[in-house]
């Protein structure tokens, strides 16, 4: 009898815990998604405007800094969720940086040494690890954290410490305030708001009735909130919003609700391609065919493996980079050749690679990696940054983000019948 009672109590506690877990998000998942969101959110392109052309001059930046004169060494702390639910963000940030190391050495005569730090996807751990890197390892610069939550947590610490801070994937707008002086942060990814602005232009075309599917974690929710704020600021309305837990097996109920709301323009604010695949399957199942379908670059992960050409037909993916151009696609090919597998988060590779090149160039210009002010000023003064053939002109002359706010410089992509990404030009 006593055991029956104890089983009953244990079962009740278990059920209550399950109920509680259903009501909230998993923090770590949140973070992971947030980063992914960040990292892969559609970005806006300032560099494209800057050059847009993928000119391919490999020597431009080197010429700027008449570099390889002296051998310089810089130590960079790379921070990300090495363990936890989203290790691929750390792996691809790190690998993107690593791919640039030999190029930096050759172009600028700067040897980049990497010290890895695992923030476990946790803001608290990120804070501890960043302080260790700054105070014990005495790194000359920091790359990461890869996720927005941890990056937000360490922003003040790094600004106080006064070391160059290279932000790769994390895209939350709040991470970097533009009005700090001196400002040690440099973004190599678009911000969430830049992505939302471009996406909103597409979604609200011609008086569309707009709905948003969002994953119930950091990435999806931050995109939802940003889109709602943007719509409100523009005097437009979002007719329906449907959230769901990542990995939900069946989403037909959410799709039917969207259909019932009369939505004909859909935004997938979802942090991974497999959940978007579940959504488009459900859309085909219930016969929901919106005329406009917008996804972020997060859809690249695994989506076309799990969906069919009929299901991905018409989905548009805005991004500040031409995902099919040599600069981006070529880098992804190099990644695959080097590591024997394609990147899981290509959108984390490119910004980290860009950051390493910019930092190496700045160290060469400053002449000493420990001259932190000199390196910061050199980063701000970069006139041309050549990223695998794409040249960014004066990327940090007016703000802290490599991409500018011009929607016209973004690229719109779709999937062809084979599931390959195709660029179809610029918005409008």
């Amino acid at each position, binding site marked *: *009898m*006593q*055991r*029956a009672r*104890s*089983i*009953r109590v*244990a*079962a*009740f506690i*278990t*059920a*209550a815990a*399950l*109920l509680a*877990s*259903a*009501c909230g998000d998993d923090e770590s998942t949140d973070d992971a998604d947030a980063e992914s969101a960040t990292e892969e959110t559609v970005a806006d392109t300032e560099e494209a405007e800057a050059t847009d052309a993928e000119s391919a001059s490999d020597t431009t930046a080197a010429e700027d800094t008449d570099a390889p004169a002296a051998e310089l060494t810089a130590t960079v702390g790379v921070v990300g969720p090495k*363990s936890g*639910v*989203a*290790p*691929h963000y750390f792996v691809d940030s790190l690998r993107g940086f690593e791919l640039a190391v030999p190029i930096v050495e050759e172009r600028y005569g700067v040897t980049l040494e990497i010290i890895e730090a695992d923030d476990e996807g946790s803001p608290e751990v990120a804070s501890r690890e960043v302080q260790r890197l700054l105070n014990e390892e005495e790194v000359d610069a920091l790359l990461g954290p890869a996720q927005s939550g941890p990056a937000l947590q360490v922003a003040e610490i790094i600004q106080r410490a006064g070391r160059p801070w290279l932000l790769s994937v994390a895209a939350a707008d709040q991470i970097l305030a533009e009005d700090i002086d001196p400002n040690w942060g440099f973004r190599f990814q678009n911000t969430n708001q830049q992505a939302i602005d471009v996406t909103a232009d597409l979604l609200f075309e011609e008086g569309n009735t707009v709905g948003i599917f969002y994953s*119930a974690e950091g990435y999806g929710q931050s995109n939802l909130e940003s889109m709602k704020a943007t719509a409100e600021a523009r005097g437009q309305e979002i007719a329906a919003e*449907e*959230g*769901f*837990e*990542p*990995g*939900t*097996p*069946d*989403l*037909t*109920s*959410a799709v*039917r*609700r969207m259909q019932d709301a009369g939505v004909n323009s859909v935004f997938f604010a979802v942090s*991974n*391609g*497999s959940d978007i*695949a*579940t959504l488009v*399957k459900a859309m*085909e*199942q*219930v*016969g929901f065919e919106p005329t406009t379908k917008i996804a972020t670059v997060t859809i690249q*992960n*695994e989506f076309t*493996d*799990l969906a069919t050409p009929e299901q991905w037909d018409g989905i548009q993916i805005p991004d500040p980079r031409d995902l099919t151009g040599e600069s981006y696609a070529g880098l992804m090919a190099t990644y695959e050749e080097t590591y024997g597998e394609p990147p*899981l988060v290509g959108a984390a590779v490119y910004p980290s690679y860009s950051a390493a090149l910019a930092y190496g160039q700045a160290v060469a210009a400053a002449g000493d990696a420990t001259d932190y002010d000199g390196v910061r000023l050199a980063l701000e003064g970069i006139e041309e940054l050549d990223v695998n053939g794409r040249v960014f002109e004066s990327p940090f002359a007016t703000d802290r983000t490599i991409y500018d706010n011009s929607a016209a410089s973004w690229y719109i992509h779709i999937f062809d019948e084979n599931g390959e990404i195709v660029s179809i030009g610029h918005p409008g």
Partner: protein
Amino acid sequence: MYESVMLGAVTGLMFSFVALGFVLTFITTKTLNFALGEFMAIAGFVALGLASVSWIPAVLVFAGAIAVPALLGGATYHVLVRPFAGGSGHDVRWLLTTVALSFVLLNLLINGQSAKVRVLDVPTADGFATLLGVTYSKQLLVIAGLAVVVVTAAHLVLEKTSVGVKMRAVSEDPEMASLAGISPRAVAIGTWIAAMAVAGLVGVLWSSYAGLSPRMGLALLIGAFAVAVIGGLTSVPGVLLGGLIYGITTYVTGYQFGAAWGDVAGLALVVVVLVLRPHGLLGRRVEVKV
């Protein structure tokens, strides 16, 4: 409403299939495998490996994918559950060891296979089918149909065969069963093997539809546990009833108020059942000698 009920029923039956893995072990050993989701993923990865060998027929891919988690299940019971379950029924350290096993397996899978979602290329039922005015995914229909067949078969084995008699005897009183010449340990290991074989089968069927990743089982696990609790952890037919009630509740609520509320409603239902009928709708009260 009719469409929601029907779609919810099919989804619920899929959860029933997974829940059978919980119920089978609980009936005979009063233990559960909280690493069930990872066992499903292991089955998927075994199938992925076997399917990549062109000369291995699909039936052997399925057989291998079911056999590996099944054998692992037997070993898990022997090494990580039985020593921590004690004889009195008050020892629940097995709960900790199976949860720990879940974390270990998850990390091993992620480190070994990465977190990427992969395509499992085994024969599946592609596309959609319309039955009685409602359109379903064919693969989900297959999983739901198999759930009914397998649960019914398990129930018949338990009630109508000598193996079932032994299982029930061990469940009732292992000491008395032992005096009658039944080996409680063999029965328990056999049950764990059967339960993890079921988990492996669902793992392959589901991952061939939704994609394979180390975390694939997590999405199903909470729903499956809820189904097992609602139906009764000591009742095999209970998983079908629990699955239907859970599936319909979550789907109808999700359709009326949003998907997130559907999950909340399903788990609220679990709480209600536990309060009103702690042993589940079809379960029997477990009395333990003290």
